[in-house]
């Protein structure tokens, strides 16, 4: 085992954790009670692998390891290799190859894997395969489970003895097996098994030849997309084979692709999925709660929570499925839901934090939701003010977009249910927008107003229509331009429940101003997919049934042609639908496992 190196790719090349990874590489994220990289080193040393090579890009890792002192463990030989210029994991591997340290086999580990897979069997299997055939160069480790995330969803086509034949990603609806590659002869026992319940764990046992191939094919960037795909699709020319090790059911791993999987991994860790790697037993309370800090009796803590050391949890604090780091100060009456808080965080009283990741050292004064808060952007975080329990006075609605066109709107204090204010705002917005991008901006602004002041969609539509109809001229071109400009906006705010008030406002307007024709409005609305055929037909039938109304009669006459056109379309659609139903009406299938 002394020759066996473990190579950790301690960086990620994507920006899922956008703000955080600008400053802190993913391997140095705190994961419940320790850093991710420490968890990995711990796991490797428990599996008797002492030689570790860490490929890093961010200087912080070098700093960390220089200052690292761990007591009471076997000393590991950790070498750091800088891969500063690399843009992908392929580059990192090429850099590794050029250093020439690896002579034989090595274990490749991605920097975001938390696992409890026992490596003894894996390495044995790898050595057995190597003895059989020198061409077995890669052993992928996979565990069994339900595929949850997009990144995990693949079909594994395996031949006998777990040789990987093909990895199919599930984007396409039809999956094609090339007949030249598959040998289908009559009477041969079963050769191919297609498994959909395997998840790749991010652990690979490779031979030096893998590095060589990366060196030869310098365009290769990723292990999965390029290397494995190449090996499996050209398997008739290539002789190198890739095998799969399927871990027994109690051994699992979790990769941290994005915030959801991060949170999920933390909860799994707390639920002792990765036994024997669990938080320290002395902190265990019950129901997977670990309290390393002081928790007041009147605080409500749900199951699957972790409270770090020196953290004081005051009374009336509610914590649901969250992880709180060291030295945090939570104010009275806080609610922390499904969030991950790192160390040294101060939270004011009565603040709600939901679905967030808050980095070390931040101070949170207002409720936030679904944000990643770091030291740098904590002032610019979009705040929410929608929670009924608390006084509106404690919140301020802050600007979320620096480049907003209408600054003056947002600096006013929100007026609750103040229609007049809304109308003025709307007129301002409508007046200022000349181009489609400004309209998009306006959508964001109106959204913010809506959320801040808790205004219903209907009011917005009414106010908007009033302002919109002010800006248009009686001729058809102006109408067309106006609709083309505001299409996105109208589609966004006029959904099925608001169509009636939308049509109503146009109708009132047309009644008042005889130059405008309701018919034209409806046709344009249909063309821009604001209204569906059925809705327009219903309205037209309704108008046709009205008596004693000159306007209604004129409208019915002028819209006769349009009505027939719509009826034709609906008839065609129904025909099409019955044809489809007889044919291939595939229906989205949900996973059903035993």
């Amino acid at each position, binding site marked *: 085992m002394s020759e066996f190196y473990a190579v950790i790719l301690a960086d990620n090349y994507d920006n899922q954790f956008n703000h955080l990874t600008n400053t802190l590489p993913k391997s140095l994220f705190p994961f419940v009670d320790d850093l991710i990289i420490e968890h990995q080193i711990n796991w490797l040393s428990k599996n008797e692998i002492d030689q570790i090579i860490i490929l890093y890009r961010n200087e912080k890792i070098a700093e960390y390891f220089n200052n690292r002192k761990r007591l009471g463990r076997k000393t590991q030989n950790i070498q750091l290799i800088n891969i500063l210029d690399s843009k992908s994991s392929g580059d990192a591997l090429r850099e590794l190859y050029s250093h020439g340290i690896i002579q034989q086999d090595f274990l490749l580990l991605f920097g975001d894997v938390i696992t409890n897979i026992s490596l003894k069997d894996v390495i044995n299997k790898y050595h057995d395969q190597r003895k059989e055939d020198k061409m077995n160069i890669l052993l992928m480790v996979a565990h069994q489970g339900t595929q949850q995330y997009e990144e995990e969803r693949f*079909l594994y086509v395996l031949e006998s003895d777990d040789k990987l034949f093909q990895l199919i990603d*599930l984007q*396409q*609806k*039809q*999956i*094609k*097996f*090339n*007949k*030249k590659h*598959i040998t*289908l*002869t*009559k*009477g*041969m*026992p*079963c*050769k*191919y*098994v*297609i*498994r*959909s*319940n395997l998840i790749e764990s991010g652990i690979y046992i490779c031979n030096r030849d893998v590095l060589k191939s990366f060196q030869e094919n310098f365009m290769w960037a990723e292990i999965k997309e390029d290397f494995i795909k190449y090996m499996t699709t050209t398997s008739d020319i290539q002789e190198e084979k890739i095998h799969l090790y399927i871990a027994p059911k109690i051994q699992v791993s979790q990769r941290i692709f994005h915030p959801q999987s991060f949170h999920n991994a933390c909860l799994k860790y707390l639920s002792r999925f990765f036994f024997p790697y669990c938080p320290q037993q002395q902190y265990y309370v019950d129901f997977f709660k670990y309290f390393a800090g002081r928790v007041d009796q009147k605080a409500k803590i749900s199951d699957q929570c972790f409270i770090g050391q020196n953290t004081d949890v005051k009374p009336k604090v509610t914590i649901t499925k969250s992880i709180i780091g060291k030295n945090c100060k939570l104010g009275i009456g806080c609610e922390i839901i499904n969030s991950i808080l790192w160390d040294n965080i101060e939270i004011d009283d009565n603040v709600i934090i939901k679905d967030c990741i808050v980095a070390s050292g931040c101070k949170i004064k207002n409720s936030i939701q679904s944000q990643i808060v770091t030291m740098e952007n904590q002032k610019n975080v979009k705040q929410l003010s929608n929670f009924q329990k608390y006084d509106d006075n404690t919140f301020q609605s802050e600007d979320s977009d620096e480049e907003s066109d209408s600054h003056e709107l947002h600096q006013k204090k929100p007026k609750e249910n103040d229609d007049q204010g809304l109308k003025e705002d709307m007129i301002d917005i409508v007046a200022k927008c000349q181009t489609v991008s400004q309209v998009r901006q306006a959508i964001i602004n109106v959204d913010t107003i809506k959320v801040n002041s808790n205004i219903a969609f209907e009011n917005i539509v009414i106010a908007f229509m009033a302002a919109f109809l002010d800006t248009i001229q009686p001729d058809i071109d102006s109408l067309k331009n106006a609709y083309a400009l505001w299409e996105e906006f109208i589609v966004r705010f006029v959904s099925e429940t608001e169509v009636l008030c939308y049509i109503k406002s146009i109708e009132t307007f047309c009644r008042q101003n005889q130059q405008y024709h309701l018919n034209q409005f409806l046709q344009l609305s249909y063309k821009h997919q604001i209204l569906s055929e059925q809705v327009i037909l219903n309205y037209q039938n309704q108008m046709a049934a009205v008596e004693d109304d000159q306007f209604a009669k004129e409208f019915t006459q002028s819209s006769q042609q349009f009505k027939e056109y719509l009826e034709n379309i609906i008839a065609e659609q129904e025909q099409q639908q019955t044809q489809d*139903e*007889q044919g*291939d*009406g*595939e*229906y*989205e*299938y949900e*996973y*059903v*496992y*035993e």
Partner: protein
Amino acid sequence: MQVKYQAIILGGGQQAGSMLFPLCQDYSKGLLPICNKPMILYQLDVLESVGFGPQDILILITRNHQAVGDLVQRRAEVVYVSDDSDSGSALLESCEKIKKDFILLSCDTMIGANILNLLDFHYSTKATITCLIKEEDLDKKQGRAPISCNLNESFDIMFIGSDHSLLHIINQEDDDQASLSVTRNVLLSCESVQIMTNLFDTHIYVCQYEVLELFLNLNKQKLEIQNWKEEFLPYIVKHQRNVNLLNLIAKKEQSLFQERKQQQFSIKVFITQDYARRLNNIKDYQQANFESVIKGNKGIPLYQGVQDFQLQYPQDARISPDSVIGEGTRIGNKVTIQRSIIGKNCTIGDHVKISNSIIMKNVVINSNCIIQHCILSNESAVGHATELNKCNLGNLASVEPNQKLVDECIIR
């Protein structure tokens, strides 16, 4: 008496025996003997041993197979269907007589498996259709494959999920494209899916009653599905997850305390290693006959006990122990019979050599003939000093004396 199931045997339609030319020229396929016992009696015996009584078995045949009907009329109920019907439409015509879940067989499959296991499997997995599939296996100890169940070149590629469901089926002959394409949802529906090419469909299907209703509804929609195996089954397998298909099955009225009927449509396979062979071509027919005479350890249980009596024959006749000779057959002098099956009441002249042949009832073989690898149907006659090699004679056919024929088919 089987309470839950009804057995339906497709006894032969217009085209039955088309690959068995010339044996079925004027003769019903169901009556062709294996080891001197008509095929259809094997089916009835198997069903009776499981508990199907005469009132539970239906045989569907067309008018031209009346002889079959007469043979079995005391053991099963015979239903005559119209002459040009295919397997599917035959079922439709007799649908009033079908009242329960049914097991559908064809008259030309020899099965050694235990049907009870199949029925239990169907019931316990609540399948809609269960297919009995034989897995051909390589005899690894001997290093050679046993002879497969059908000697055709074509075979089915089946995708079987981990819960024994049949997800996809493609016939190798039909598929000319270079790639085998399957929809993603099919592969996702089970944890693991195996692609198997060594499975042989025995044409025995256990179906729930709803399947008949489904078939009826599909016909109403004019989808032109006639043949059960070639059209209906692939159609169902392809659409088994299709909601619209499920809706075609009439929903039963739910009483207050009755369990809600599952609307799942599942097609399962029951894989067996026991003997199975389908006899729709000459090669398979011959093979089945030869398998039926194997005695001892390797003997197939289905065929044991068929030949039970001794026969008198002259002392200078050399008859190998794996030959079977029927009752009432007279054998002349200096006759050599090797590995052949000879039916009842035949007359075999002097100096005749018969090897590897199948000879049915009332056949006259005159002296000095050499007959190798042939099949001679009922009441045929072979003239003096004729050599027949790999020839097949139809019903009532006769061959002139002094001929030497190789690879011929002779009919009346």
